[in-house]
């Protein structure tokens, strides 16, 4: 597959994992990385929902991003009515609400199965990418191994399962 050069939309999990393994600079330097305001908030201490929280400098994070979006009720409503049975967290929902407004060549990196299922249901399977793939194509080799849910192999397997699950739900 050719290296992606367009916008990369990332969620809170990806920002946290990239910082944990020291790969954020490589990711944000290799692609125009964008996210939503809710995800930026969720990367800050007190909102990470992690036992050991990382110190992520908000100003530096904002400066490294190519775009930070803040979808309103209209965009959120448009996303929710299409799959309100999939319970996303605030940042994940906000990211998809923004993503659905775009017409350019975006890809989305967010490893949670619910977020992936949302993408599969709405027909965006081919736009879902693994952090491992993005880092590899940017020429970065993580010194610390990525958690399983950020690997290309796991994503491929999971997307296959979700496609089948969605088909089963429809029939």
């Amino acid at each position, binding site marked *: 597959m050719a290296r992606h050069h367009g916008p990369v939309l990332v969620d*809170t*999990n990806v920002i946290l*994992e990239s910082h944990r393994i020291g790969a954020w600079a490589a990711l944000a330097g290799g692609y125009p990385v964008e996210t939503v305001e809710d995800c930026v908030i*969720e990367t800050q201490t007190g909102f990470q*929902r*992690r*036992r050991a929280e990382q110190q992520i400098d908000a100003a530096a994070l904002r400066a490294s991003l190519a775009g930070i979006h803040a979808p309103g*009720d*209209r965009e*959120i*409503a*448009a996303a*929710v*009515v299409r*799959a*309100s*049975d*999939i*319970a*996303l*967290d605030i*940042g*994940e929902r906000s990211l998809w609400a923004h993503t659905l407004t775009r017409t350019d060549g975006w890809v989305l990196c967010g*490893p*949670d*199965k*619910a*977020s*992936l*299922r949302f993408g599969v249901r709405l027909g965006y399977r081919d736009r879902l990418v693994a952090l491992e793939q993005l880092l590899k194509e940017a020429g970065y080799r993580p010194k610390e191994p990525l*958690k*399983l*849910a950020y690997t290309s192999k*796991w994503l491929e397997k999971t997307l296959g399962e*979700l496609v089948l*699950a969605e088909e089963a739900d429809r029939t």
Partner: protein
Amino acid sequence: MAAQLIGARIKALREERKLSQDDLARVFGFKDRQTVSAIETGERRVTADELLLAVEKLGAPLDYFTDPFLLVGEGRFSWRQTNVGSGVLGAYERSAGRWIAAFRSIAPQVGRASPLLRRALGLTRHSRFEDAMEAGERFAAEFDLGDVPARRLTDVMERELGILVLMVDAFEGISGAACRLPELDVVLINRHEVAGRRHFDQAHELFHILTWDAMPPEHSEEAKEVGGNRVEQLANNFASAVLMPKAALARYGEWAEFGDDELVIRLNTAANELMVTASAVKWRLVALEWLKPARARAISDAALRNNGHEAPKSIPPLLFSKPFMEVIGLAVDEGRISTRRAAGLLDLAVEDLTDLFVAHGVEPPAEL
């Protein structure tokens, strides 16, 4: 399901505002009320613009219409508490309502729907206390609760009756609650109470679940093993008999013949073995007329405190329950709820959520 949820919430709010379907049709700009009716029943999908119109015109936030993890006028609670203010109770009820609503919404999606039919006891508020005790005895026998009924009670409630039993971290003073939804029965128990009190609360709430239609309980009642209004007294008699059947108490000998010191020892021993409080054993013996009320009152509370132990020997049970965590785990694994959302729902860090899955013997989702 999405269309049904949004439609049901629109209907609930319309009724709360005392609007007719014709009124709402005018608000939405529909030609007739049939479109409103179709939306409310879920036959017709709501568009994003209509949803925004509902937010604006009905004055409720977007999440009110779209968040399946909310109870909107559906759940009826009955709390057992001691000196807990209505504000605190209300705040806790909203938290508990989210767990219950989440389970109700998710369980059918992962193949764990509640039973179609409900069991009920044939008692009314006019029943005698003896009738409630007899029902408790029969419940213990018919569901084969064994020599120590408290040990199997949760399992029977979950597997045989389809009741969701949740061990929770509640504010001090809240012992537990029964909650009834149209499609689900739930019992909440404060897991930090001593074991004997937890078991009594659970059997007491079981009575409310099994008699809810015939004698709906008060929204809030004081947690005590004796006294209260008639329904509470019936519930206490039932709970005592479930946890302390006659046969289980008879094996300790002729209670009326024990001297004072021996009586205290036997009460504490029976309580420890039956996993109840010694005070509950004492009042159960009075109800059976195996102990005179005056003699029961003469036993000092101090002698029975902590069933004769220095301090309560109690490790709290795991948070929530295995069936609950299995449903959450399946939903995360199937991509029906995100891990962050699940962790937020249960007010846990993602790693703590993983640990809780493992502690309950549930396969944890992929680490994020």
